[in-house]
């Protein structure tokens, strides 16, 4: 009965929450020697599942065929490690300004996702109760 917004938006909101946790983790480990910053890969997986990716799809017409498009239900935010070098002596590559800006972007993303979710619910409300 419900449209695709009710599947996609909770997934991306979950990913935003996870992203916030990862960014806080990076900030907390700003002074930990040899710590490498973590980041989240979610957008690409979601794009693949929705069929908007640049990646070539493997055509399947049998259940046993290898499928490279993940199902929407299985899309999860993966935590990856950024092992790039930095200018710091202690082997840590956390840049506090970058993390801060990522955190702001993530918070704004979360606000828009929750607004979209509100609208998605309101559309059903309009159908059920009519325009007030």
């Amino acid at each position, binding site marked *: 009965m419900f449209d695709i917004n009710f599947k996609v938006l909770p997934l991306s909101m979950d990913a935003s929450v996870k992203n916030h946790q990862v960014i806080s983790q990076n900030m907390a480990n700003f002074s930990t020697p040899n710590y490498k910053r973590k980041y989240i890969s979610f957008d690409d997986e979601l794009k693949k599942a929705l069929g908007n990716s640049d990646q070539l799809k493997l055509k399947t017409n049998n259940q046993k065929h290898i499928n490279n498009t993940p199902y929407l239900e299985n899309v999860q935010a993966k935590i990856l490690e950024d092992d790039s070098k930095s200018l710091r002596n202690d082997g840590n590559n956390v840049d506090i*300004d970058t993390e801060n800006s990522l955190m*702001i972007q993530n918070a704004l993303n979360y*606000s828009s996702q929750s607004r979209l979710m509100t609208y998605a619910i309101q559309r059903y409300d309009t159908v059920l109760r009519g325009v007030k």
Partner: protein
Amino acid sequence: MDSLFRTINVASSGMTAERFRLDVISQNLSNADTTKTENGGPYVRKGVTFQEVLNNTLSGTSQFSGVKVNEIFEDDAPFRLEYDPSHPEANEEGYVEYPNVNVLNEMIDMITAQRAYDLNASVISTAKNMYNSALNIGK
């Protein structure tokens, strides 16, 4: 939406660069009287140069994406000479070579770096406010 996020990314790269400049300034200030270094001779004043970062997209147009530190250069201005025959580093004529660091100039650079850092921070909060007002359209 993407361009507002780009604003935030560009400003944060500026903040990183200015913070690095402050690192170099503090290195200069703390070594303002260092007469001996590993290479021999007094400390040489360091400076940074910045470089614009452009991201080349597949469609061929280049998008600006901030600033980065290009290099740390050594100032080739002459050293400051002071007459102090009792100093262990003094030459035959009794003069000591002090670093070419001018503390006043470094202080001015420090204020500039701080102002630039603040500016970048306020760019970020402006972009954030713009995005939030965009979110309030149709509310």
